[in-house]
């Protein structure tokens, strides 16, 4: 696991997981601009297809194990945990 590529919230969440192979984490994957075929295949295996060539931020639901694998890829810049938002009405 390359902790320099994962944000604080994701590092905290990974620390608490019991089953590292359970797909528990909704994340953003920030990549280098140009991806080789191995990288694209990795993303396809995660259910991600690039819709435009310029896309460098992807979303996926993954396990802690996959996060570890992703963090070790040189084409991955960083990984961020999705946060839960709220509606902004009063009451």
């Amino acid at each position, binding site marked *: 696991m390359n902790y320099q590529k994962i944000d604080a919230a994701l*590092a905290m969440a990974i620390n608490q997981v019991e089953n590292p192979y359970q797909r528990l984490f909704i994340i953003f994957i920030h990549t280098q601009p140009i991806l080789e075929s191995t990288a694209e295949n990795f993303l396809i295996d995660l259910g991600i297809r690039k819709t435009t060539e*310029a896309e460098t931020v992807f979303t996926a639901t993954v396990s802690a194990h996959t996060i570890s694998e992703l963090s070790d890829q040189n084409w991955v810049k960083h990984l961020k945990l999705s946060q839960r938002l709220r509606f902004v009405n009063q009451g």
Partner: protein
Amino acid sequence: MRHQKLSPGLLLAFEDVQREGDEASIAHKRSLGIVLPKTSTKPTRIVVFVYCDEDTDLSHLSEFGIEFNQSQGSVRTAYLPINALERLSEEPAIHRVKPSRKLEMRMDTASEKVYLPQFKQKHPELTGKGVIIGVVDSGIDPQHPAFKGRILQIWDQTLPGPGVAEGAYGAELKGDLLKISQDNNGHGTHVAGIAASDHGEFCGVAPEAQLVIVKTDMQDAHIADAVRYIFSVADHMGCPAVVNLSLGGHADAHDGSDSLSQIINAQTGPGRIVCCAAGNEGNDNIHAQAVVKSKNNHTMRFQVPPHQAGIVWLNGWYDGDSELEIALRSPNGFVTPFQAVNSKGNPAKQYKLFDSRIEIVTPGPDPANGDHNFFVQIRGQGWGRFSGPVTGGVWQLRVRNTACKDVRLDVWTLDDTGGSVFFTGKSVSDAVKIGSPAAAKSSVTVASYTSKVKYIDIDGEEREMGLELDTISEFSSEGPLRNNEQKPDVAAPGAMIISALSSQANFNRSMVHNSEFLALAGTSMAAPFISGLIALLLQRNPNLDPASIKEILKNHSSIPEQAAGSFDRKWGFGLINTENL
């Protein structure tokens, strides 16, 4: 007199007249259906709703001057001398008597305050036709008459299904299948109505815009997918589009560098606009700021209510060139050690105090913006996933600056109750409370203006909210961003706004105006007002990009008693004035 049959307002008026004579009814004339006599020889009369047995014959009451407009039905209207209310109440078949209300054109209050009727008079052709308004929210009531025939499709992310190209989850619904998706929350229907309703007395800003709805599961990664989806639909149809996001959070850097904001920036452009609510933390001390002197410690205090919060988080950000060590002190005096930045290994550590469990994460600089982010999680005593509430009382976040220069620290509180943990003391900062996605550079970020504080509920009762009228709503979150960029952009009416009521949602009757409309407040309500306006602008010029839209809105906004072009961290560039848009 059967007092319990009269509604409170009516009983009050009756008793005032009994005590003080007809003159007392003048005060009530303002709101009740009271008809003052033309001469002093005639009695004051009143118009009322009468709830009675459906087929009962009430014609015998005419000898008391009580005239009914209907001879049958369970709700009838009547015209009678005010003193005859006593006889009316004695009638066994009558269950309830309510006053007729003097109505005002309240439904147009929001529009009037921003001169929208004048704009529409000048530009009757601008209705939002040919523009897509995307609403990423709690869904929509697809059968509400306000949207009939204009909901193109719904991506319900909460339903099981194969999803769409932008996200392999949820179900995409069109046509007859739209009704499978439900808005049990009601927020999304209300928001969509503000932007695009074409029904009844509460018309939206863009009543002919088409709607693409995403019912979100509230994960910001899936909201990002939703933005991509809506713009993809718009690409396919060759239409300009504006996406409304009346949602937000505070687990980000508050500088627009978060992932959702980056995706919004990448997705927006000519004919592709995102409009966000600024947030409703104007009254809440969720943000603390301090300059931590070199080689010094600093303490920030925050209050946790007893027995409420299951988890409390602190989200702290400071410059990447500095390094702070972080510690926590519980209300009972138990402390963690100071934890330094760990740039290489696992930056997360757990501490079990006598009264709590604490995790502190202190990684190296965040790759997105180069700043340091630390995260603190506090849970009550327990084990594994099971824990009691977080200990109530005053907690301390202690920081130690080991570097040779001073550093500014910003921290935000989050909790699982929706907002009950707040900073106290000198570190409280009433600013920098606009988080993602409102913090996105390209998003149009909207503050709330209070255009109305009273409305009539479904039971005929007048409701008044404790807000100051005709000014920026006190709950509207303040900017600027953490990097001092100016946000919000503009203010629009956000309280109290009457809009479409989802038939699938349960609201307290005091909020319901009638069977189709509901009163809500928030920057959630202000944002779709501007989204609707943007739809009108895009209809006129489909190539407007975010910067152009913001410039147009800025040039047509103002803050009362301030020079043109002034910026304020609560108002943005001020209340929109649409008259000459």
